């Protein structure tokens, strides 16, 4: 890895194109279990995407007029964005509250967030009947300013720009461009503040989309507080993702993480588990309150009711208790298990609102086709590939070159 830093250091004056081309070459072993699983899925997914744009949505996907939002939106967009929430929570903690302890994981979290938005919001294009219309709210062909989607579209766009600016010093360090690095570092704070505002608005805005489908969503999941629920749950969803992703990075990229940061890792995970426990505690009561407000006691003893109880008790209350206990006992393994359960819970919640509880009473239920599943997985795997590519080349997990530290 030091070799790579050397390249970046010496880049002044050298041809940047030569450097870029050399960086494009793959590194490391090809036949890893992850590659063996992901490569065929990505290739198959690409083929299916070609079919989808060539022959139309109906060839690949099971969505109908009645259920227009399938797996790509429900899983990739709605769920993926919730998990990207770690970026705004952590930037708030580090840059606004000045909790320096978490500084070592900020870059990887922002990168993860940025890629999540780029890919999962990108997956939106797949699902649009007329994908070229996606630019309309931006270029003003038809703004559609009265639609929540207008807000979501602009927020996604602006937030991606903000995250790119937050991440850009890392790219500058990689390329060895010192002047640009200085300017971009100076913009970080503004981007962070802008990004946090946008994030909070569109996490809830994503929930607000479902306010339009009052009649279609199962009453146990539909309520007028969906935006609030989405916002609050995005906090612990994002942080659980950070814990989960961090424990994988620890193993896969262990040679890039400095000794100091390795030692700090457990303290960070523990700190995050405390925040998760706190927010989930509040979230559980919010859900309880909303449930009572909705007065749907009678629905609890139905199939959907049991499913609802499983989500609330098994994947909100239980991991919350687990976070709580493991924080107090300093049990890192248990914190990771709790993070995993929380993530399952958030996936359940988002899918319940957007797919499972959506037109639950329809005669013919929407079930995603195998092709939709493959494409959904292909999107995630591609994101992980890019993520890995960036981490192996840019100073995301490893320390910045010494010239860059002086700028801070």
């Amino acid at each position, binding site marked *: 890895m030091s070799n790579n830093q050397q390249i970046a250091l010496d880049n002044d004056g050298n041809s940047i194109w030569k450097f870029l081309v050399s960086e494009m070459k793959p590194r490391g072993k090809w036949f890893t279990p992850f590659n063996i699983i992901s490569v065929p899925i990505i290739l198959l997914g690409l083929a299916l995407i070609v079919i989808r744009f060539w022959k139309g949505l109906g060839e690949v996907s099971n969505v109908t007029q009645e259920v227009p939002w399938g797996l790509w939106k429900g899983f990739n967009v709605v769920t993926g964005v919730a998990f990207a929430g770690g970026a705004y929570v952590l930037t708030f903690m580090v840059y606004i509250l000045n909790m320096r302890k978490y500084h070592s994981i900020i870059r990887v979290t922002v990168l993860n967030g940025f890629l999540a938005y780029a890919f999962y919001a990108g997956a939106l294009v797949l699902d649009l009947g007329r994908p070229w219309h996606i630019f309309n709210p931006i270029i003003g062909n038809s703004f559609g300013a009265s639609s929540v989607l207008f807000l979501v579209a602009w927020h996604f766009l602006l937030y991606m720009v903000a995250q790119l600016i937050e991440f850009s010093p890392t790219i500058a360090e990689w390329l060895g461009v010192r002047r640009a690095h200085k300017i971009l570092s100076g913009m970080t704070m503004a981007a962070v503040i802008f990004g946090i505002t946008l994030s909070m608005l569109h996490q809830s805005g994503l929930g607000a989309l479902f306010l339009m489908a009052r009649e279609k969503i199962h009453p146990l999941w539909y309520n007028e507080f969906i935006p609030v629920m989405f916002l609050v749950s995005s906090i612990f969803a994002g942080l659980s993702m950070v814990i989960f992703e961090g424990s994988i990075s620890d193993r896969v990229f262990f040679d890039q993480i400095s000794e100091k940061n390795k030692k700090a890792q457990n303290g960070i995970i523990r700190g995050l588990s405390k925040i998760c426990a*706190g927010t989930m*505690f*509040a979230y559980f*009561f919010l859900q309880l309150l909303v449930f*009572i407000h909705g*007065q749907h006691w009678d629905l609890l003893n139905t199939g959907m009711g049991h499913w609802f109880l499983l989500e609330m008790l098994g994947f909100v209350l239980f991991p919350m208790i687990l976070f*709580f206990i493991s*924080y107090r006992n*300093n049990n890192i393994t248990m914190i990771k298990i709790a993070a995993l359960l929380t993530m399952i819970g958030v996936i359940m919640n988002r899918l319940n609102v957007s797919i499972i509880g959506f037109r639950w009473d329809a005669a013919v239920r929407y079930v995603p086709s195998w092709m939709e599943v493959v494409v959904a997985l292909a999107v995630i795997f591609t994101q992980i590939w890019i993520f890995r590519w960036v981490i192996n080349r840019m100073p995301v997990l490893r320390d910045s070159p010494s010239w860059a530290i002086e700028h801070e």
Partner: protein
Amino acid sequence: MDGFSYSDIFATKGIEYLIIITFLVLLIPFWVVLNKQVEIKSKIQKALGFLSASILKIPQGLYYSKNHTWMYMEKTGNARIGLDDLLLHITGEVKFIVNKKPGDTINKGDLLTEIDQNGKLLRLYSPVSGKIMDTNNMIQKTPGILNEDPYGKGWIYKIKPSNWIAEVKSCYFAEEATNWSSAELERFKDFLAISMKNYSPEPSMLILQDGGEICDHSLSALPNEIWRDFEAEFLNLNR
């Protein structure tokens, strides 16, 4: 649920209010218990902590007087005075009895302050002459600050010295101070061994007989007589 009517409480949002109240009531123990562990942990660390020269903080730019006070001249010409890390490690958490007010004059060797731990007192004498300019109110409110940051937020008085150059000559400075602190720690170990024999028929629980490490805050568990001896041995300026 026939026969039991909760429809009224629903209509008045009673149950929702009850849920909110329950939440707020539960939030307090939730938060208290969640944060409790850190405190326990620090207690364990303290209990396990051994006192050795390597953990002592000795900033090199301060003057250390023989009676375990330090002095530091600020740009304004006022000197800050406080207690050194070794003394605070030996005693543990203490309270201050401030007997001087801003405006009082003090001579070297006058009573500067008394520190108190559950009625056991230690008298500290001033290493410097001058006029009291300010006292640190923070240490009255949060005595813990003294042990955490003895050379920063844990200062006691600001004094305008009248005979600074002559009086700091007898103080330890820089490397000398580090060596002196280690020597004082060794002397304290010997002192404990002798003192314990005088006042307690039991063999010492505190000291490993091979002269190894002693516990942090070792004086806090010991009787008043040993505090008197400690004061005479270590806090006397004229020895």
